[in-house]
């Protein structure tokens, strides 16, 4: 899953955006002078973002444009390269291997995201309520899996799931039974669900926790005076007030899960073949490009996945729009 952590820091402020708005600039005596100043400011502004802009163009926009260009051509092993327009895209959306992968990540998101949200929300609410030293320790422990690099985490789970070395096997052998292999064809969905939840729930917990910390405590006092129980405070005040954080998490999780790659790619070699080369759209694109030498079609698959992600996020934003506006 590819979610960028840097955006989170600004989150606690999102509930109180007016504080951040700069005061309107004072009026200037003459029009021409203000124009000049504005122009100079604009130039300075561009200078400031120039380093970022260059990197952004060189490592994001240019590769994207190049991939888009590649995706418009078709190259066969036996034939040369030819311009084929949108043919690759038509092929992609009728390619059973791609559609199978898309269906998997969609199903996976539908189960994973509610589970992840429930776990992280519950943990955040409990930790927000408690102020003991144990709570601070638990917060760190719940967050820790996120600090473990995804690759290492996946490798670790590979060993934990191992039918020979894994603790599951030892546990079951006490009762003379054999443990289920959590990466078998039928179980791999749940095996991966567990790995991803473990990896990300702590991170989402911190986001929600930070949002909870930003709530004005006088609201709680007012609620108590009105006779609200702790449960009512949690469900009627805390959760609605962090709903913008929840929406943010949902979008992160949705984008990350639709682009699912690292965990299945790493667990693939120990999964006895249940993680196929077309397991998720991203793995399929990777294998098309670097295994089968089909860079053009792989680019088309990548853009097709982008289209799917865009549609999914749009549907989601549309669905949550009304609710969000009611709350704020």
């Amino acid at each position: 899953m590819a979610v960028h952590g840097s955006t989170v820091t600004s989150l606690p402020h999102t509930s109180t955006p007016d504080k951040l708005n700069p005061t309107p600039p004072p009026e200037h005596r003459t029009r021409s002078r203000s124009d000049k100043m504005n122009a100079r400011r604009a130039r300075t502004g561009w200078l400031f973002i120039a380093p970022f802009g260059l990197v952004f163009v060189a490592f994001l926009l240019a590769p994207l444009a190049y991939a888009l260009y590649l995706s418009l051509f078709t190259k066969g092993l036996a034939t040369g390269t030819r311009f084929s327009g949108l043919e690759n895209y038509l092929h992609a959306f009728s390619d059973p291997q791609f559609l199978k992968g898309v269906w998997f990540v969609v199903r996976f998101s539908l189960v994973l995201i509610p589970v992840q949200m429930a776990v992280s929300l519950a943990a955040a609410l409990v930790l927000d309520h408690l102020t003991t030293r144990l709570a601070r320790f638990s917060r760190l422990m719940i967050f820790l899996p996120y600090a473990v690099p995804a690759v290492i985490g996946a490798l670790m789970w590979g060993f934990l799931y191992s039918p020979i070395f894994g603790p599951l096997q030892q546990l079951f052998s006490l009762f003379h039974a054999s443990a289920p292999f959590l990466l078998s064809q039928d179980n791999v969905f749940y095996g991966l669900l567990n790995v991803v939840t473990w990896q990300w729930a702590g991170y989402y917990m911190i986001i929600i926790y930070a949002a909870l910390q930003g709530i004005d405590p006088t609201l709680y006092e007012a609620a108590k005076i009105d006779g609200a129980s702790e449960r009512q405070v949690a469900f009627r005040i805390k959760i609605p007030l962090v709903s913008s954080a929840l929406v943010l998490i949902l979008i992160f999780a949705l984008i990350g899960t639709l682009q699912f790659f690292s965990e299945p790619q790493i667990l693939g070699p120990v999964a006895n073949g249940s993680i196929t080369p077309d397991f998720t759209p991203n793995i399929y694109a990777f294998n098309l490009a670097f295994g089968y030498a089909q860079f053009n079609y792989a680019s088309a698959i990548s853009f097709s996945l982008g289209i799917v992600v865009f549609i999914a996020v749009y549907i989601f934003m549309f669905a949550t729009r009304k609710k969000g506006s009611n709350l704020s």
Partner: protein
Amino acid sequence: MNKKAIASAVSAAALAATMAGCSGGGDAASAGSNTTNCTNKIVHADAPKVSVWAWYPNMATVVDNFNNSHTDVQVCWTVAGQGGPEYAKFQTAIQAGKGAPDVIMLEADQLTGFELQNALVDLSKYGAGDVKKNFSAGSWKDVSQGDSVYAIPVDGGPMAMIYRKDVLDKYGIKPPTTWAEYETAAQKVKDAGGPAFGDLGSNVPAALTALMAQKGAVPFTYDLADQKNISIHLDSQPAKDVLNYWAGLVKKGLVATQDQFTTDYISGMIGGKYATYISAAWAPGYLTGSGVGKGNEKGTFAAAPLPQWDPSNPVSVNWGGSTFAVTSQAGDQKLAAEVAKGLYADDTSLTDGWKTQTIFPLNQNVLKSEAFTNNAVDFFGGQTANKDIYIPAENAYKGFSYSPFSVYYYAQLQTETVKINAGKVSGDEAATELQGIMVNYAKSQGFTVN
């Protein structure tokens, strides 16, 4: 964003794109000269260097042997992955037009695909014929297309049956010589509560293909001289028979379905979880390296000829085996060809290779040498396995015609094997599906399928 800003952003993007374009074209001339990060020590610093990608377990020794004995050229060696990961990097380098090494280790089944992409140099013009006499006609055929030679063979993989003496003795079974006997023996061990008799790992599609070829299947017929035509017969009766046979063993619970070369498989080998291992001559080296056949299990393994379908007409097959090829990106093709011919071709290296059983050498001088023939193999408890099993198997090997899209084919066969192992398809169904998928793929790649 004002207009001027947009304009400057656009021009910056254009500039970046041009810069990317320039570096792509400009560096191509010096491609292949990336010899700064060597895994090995360069002995003669002044000599020109040739970069090599290879993953032989004893490659460090081999490279040192080469560099110590050559003053005119030095090898700069890197491990770019073992098998698949290396091919992926090479494929990327081909697409990029730079980044490939001068000399690359490739398995024989990968050559056709890279030859078709013009990624390999025809070595016949650089004196490949000089070393032809060192190899059998069959192994030379595997690296040639007509008069062109695209690689120098190093090792082969004649297949045999490795088995646990202790397990077979315990259940009073003699090593099976036919596949029918193999199944009977497997049933007997299972009835007596014994371990799995063998294993159908989904991640060794090359081995399964070899077993299909043993029954007479010819999955692909392809000739580089006739680039656009290919024959695909994956649903032929012999192919179906072999897949049905293994699907049957899986269904009856006679063999395991564990992927091979995994930690779980290795530890199963150590614990005697698999009575036999249908594998190639290089397998013991990899097993020993992982700690199999050591300690109190020393000498529990033995080798027997590969079980046959028709004992009156035995067929030998091959799994794996590698070669050194020169890439078209090589800075100095002539020098690179010298390395391809000379690397892992000296007696010291070859002896080190076969003694550790990490390679089964194809060099005739070694195959015919007294030391190799009569070697009492440690892993097999002193059995003279070379003379009794592997050399006859190698001599009887007739060669194989590989497809130009091995990676794709293996991925599809792997997927079908997983389905067989899960009991979701029969051997017949797997063969039919495989045929359909491969024919479609070949057509989409512009081939005419006959």
